[in-house]
Every structure is written in structure tokens, then in C-alpha cells.
């Protein structure tokens, strides 16, 4: 069982959260020329690293806020969590 520290509610069990995927992926800017490669990078291509991974989680059965989590994909250790507008 993962114990995830929501930046707003504190430590809660994994059961309360939904996973949102890689947090480093950036949507191409609106109203600008977007190449096929840019869309590819955004929609399909993922680094999927073994080790430290910056990802999004959603406290869906709690405060319903999205936030960032830095987690190890080989040990499941969670190093840090932060609000969306904070840097990790």
C-alpha cells in the first residue's frame, strides 16, 4: 500500500488517489504551428524511466486536487510531493 502525502490533506492511503501519468509531458502551445513530432511527443512518446519519476496524481476521493509526486519506479519510494505550481 502506498502512503501518499497530498499537499493539501497530508498522508493518505493509495486507495484515495488516481494516477495521472508523467508530469514532465507538456502540451504544445495553443494557436501556434504544431508539428506532427510535437503531437507525437505529447500524445504517445514517454521516457518511462526506471528510478526517479515525476508524475501527476489526483486526490479523487479526497480534496479532488491534482498535484505532483516524485516517486521511484523500481522501489515505489515517494521522495516528495508538491502543488502543481511548485517545482520539485
Amino acid at each position: 500500500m502506498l502512503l501518499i502525502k497530498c499537499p493539501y490533506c497530508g498522508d493518505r492511503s493509495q486507495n484515495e488517489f488516481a494516477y495521472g501519468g508523467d508530469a514532465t509531458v507538456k502540451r504544445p502551445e495553443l494557436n501556434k504551428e504544431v508539428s506532427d513530432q510535437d503531437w507525437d511527443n505529447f500524445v504517445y512518446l514517454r521516457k518511462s524511466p526506471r528510478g526517479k519519476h515525476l508524475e501527476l496524481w489526483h486526490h479523487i476521493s479526497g480534496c479532488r486536487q491534482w498535484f505532483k509526486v516524485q516517486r521511484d519506479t523500481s522501489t515505489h519510494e515517494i521522495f516528495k510531493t508538491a502543488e502543481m505550481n511548485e517545482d520539485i
Partner: protein
Amino acid sequence: MQKYSVFSLIKNALNGHKNWEVAWKDPTPKSQYDVVIIGGGGHGLATAYYLAKEHNITNVAIVEKGWIGGGNVGRNTTIIRSNYMYDVNARFNEFGMNLWRNMSQELNFNVMFSPRGIINLAHSDVQMNAFSRRGNSMRLNGIDAVLLGREEVKKIIPMADFSENVRFPIFGGLMQPSAGTARHDAVAWGYARQADSMGVDIIQHCEVTGFDVVNGKIKGIKTSRGNIKTNKVGLCVAGSTSILAEKLNMTLPIETHLIQACVSEPIKPVLDKVVTFGAGHFYCSQSDKGEMVMGGDLDGYNSYAQRGNLPTLQHVLTEGLAMFPFLSKLKMLRTWGGIMDMSMDGSPIIDKTHIEGLYLNCGWCYGGFKSTPASGWTFAHTIAQDKVHELNAELSLNRFSTGHLLDEKGIGTKTWIG
């Protein structure tokens, strides 16, 4: 190579089983091979076997970080089927079904292929319509499919919950009678033994640490047991694909995720089909030892851990109890996890890459075991001929950027939303 038969068994029994030959050798790596396959799982071993048998390429090495059969080929729930709607997936997997039917004889190794049939349960009229459509598509591709009503399902699996006031009543199901199971370890060992006997070097405990790429061409690999020169490398490493791709500066349409499975204590024969729950992710079959073999959904976050957490297992087994209430009386014997190369459209990739001599076999999600022979056969063709076979022409790497997705289920890596 020593042939396995009832006579060899009797002969060796009389000698106290002291004279069996080793099933495959333990060679030290040579400095050069015509083809190096990275990954000694089912797909890698099958690829090497078909390279030798179909294409007469025997100067081949399989390089495996751990031991052969220690990854997903030894961790899956052994289900073999071709009940796909899309033509590409249906033809590819039905081609594989024909290889399965003959495998024990061809490999001289009993893989215990058991075509006992699979039933996908439906829990609404809409789902029955969808299954009817899929069944018709299957039949157009020459695959057996039978649409069953509630009463017909009840005759086959009376132990399922057919009571009136349940959240997900059973409306019927789609059955592929020719689907089934096989003994997964035997598949790895059977391919390994035959590949070895044709000259393939199976090199275990040998980790690939880097690649030698010159002017866009592969020239060799670096391993924990020295450098190996080769002009052709087949990447066949399932959940570890992204790790090796990073060493090649490639980013792939893949995320590595974790899935768990479990078996109960062994009980007397009760279930002679593979059955899948239609209102969630749960499926179940009974092994020859009597254990109920069960699996379900991904844990739901990127992971290379090969071990999972309890919430997903609990969720999956809750669905199991909704389908088969009698499971509540059983004790759990073992649970385990494996890591899946989840592609973004749920279908695999068997293709060449932008690096000359580098071939890619990945994206099997959690359905790779059944595809072991078809994957090995088509990947061997792709490597030997340096071009894709018509069976895997559309399992291409660039289908994501060109929009030719094979989104059979339309859920990609986020299977828990499907």
C-alpha cells in the same frame, strides 16, 4: 540431441536418471554473431528458434540478464486465444494458434497445450451486441466463435453467480472453443532446447550495458561479459524495453506498468474453461494442479518493481467473488507481479527501426504469452529478411505518428478507465 519419448524415459529410469543430457548448454559469449537477440524470454527464445529453423541462421546468441524464462513467460496466467476483432490482431494470433496446436510435437517437449475454450462474460444487452459483432468478425477471419445466452453459459459454468439480485447479472458470453492454456515454463524450455541444439548460444546472467552504433548502423553490443560484434540486434525485452531504448537515445510509445496475478490452494476439478468477468478486469482458470489461477488489472502507475500492492489485488478479487462466489472459501497460495510494456494503443510493435540492423519487438501489454510463437516467427522473418512480414506489417512503430492505431480496446496504457 537426445529425443524425449516414453522409451527414453524408461531407459533413463532404469539407469536411475543419471544419464540425461543437459537440455541446453552454458556457453561463454563468442566475439561475433550474425544475430544477437536481447532477452531470453518466450519471445526471444522463439525468435532464435525460428531464425535457425526457418531461415537457417544459426550463428545466433540470446543474451539474457537473468535466467531464461524468469521474466514474464514464467509469470503470466498461461492463456492462449485469438478472439480479436481487428483483422490484423485476429490474423496474427490465429496464425499463432496453428503454431500452438503443433508445438509439443514440433519441439519434442510437452507444453501441455489445453484448448479448453475461453468465455468472455457479458453483463448487459449492449455488451452482448458488442460481443456479437466481435464474434462475427472472428468468424470472418476463420476463428471459431460462439455467442452464448444466459442459459447456455449456466450449463457450462453453473458455479458462477446466476442469482437474480446481483449488481452485474450474466446476460451471456462470447466463447472461443479453441482457445485454452499451456504450461508456460515448458514453452520457454522447449524453444530453448531446440534452439540450442541447432547452434544458438543461450547466454544467461549477461546484462546489456550499451550499444555500438556507427553512422546509423548497429555494429555490436556491450555486455557485462564483454563486447559482442554483430550487425543485427533484436530487442525482445518486454517491460525493460524503455531502459534499453534510452541507451539508444530512442523514446518509445510505451510505459512500463505492473500487473499482479495469484493462485489459490489446489482444489478438485471445478472449472474446465477460462472465464473472464465482463464488468471489470478479472479472469480465472484452473490449473492442472487444481489451483485457481487468477488475474486482473494493472496496479495503475509506472513501475519496474515486479511486485505489487494490495489495493489492486483486493479490487480484482472483489470482482472475482462477484463472478464466482465459491472463491471466497479458498485460501490464497501465491501472488506475484510482472512488468508490462504497455503500448499506447494496446497492440504490439514488431518492426525495424531508424537504426539499421536494430529490430524492435515490444508493446505486448499483458497479452504477450499467447503470441509467443507468432511473435517469434514474424520477428525472425523481419530480422532474417530485413523486412516485415505481412502478418506484422501493420504492427509498426510509426503507426502512432501516422494515425494508423490498432486500438482494439481503445484504452492504451490507462486500462483501468476501460
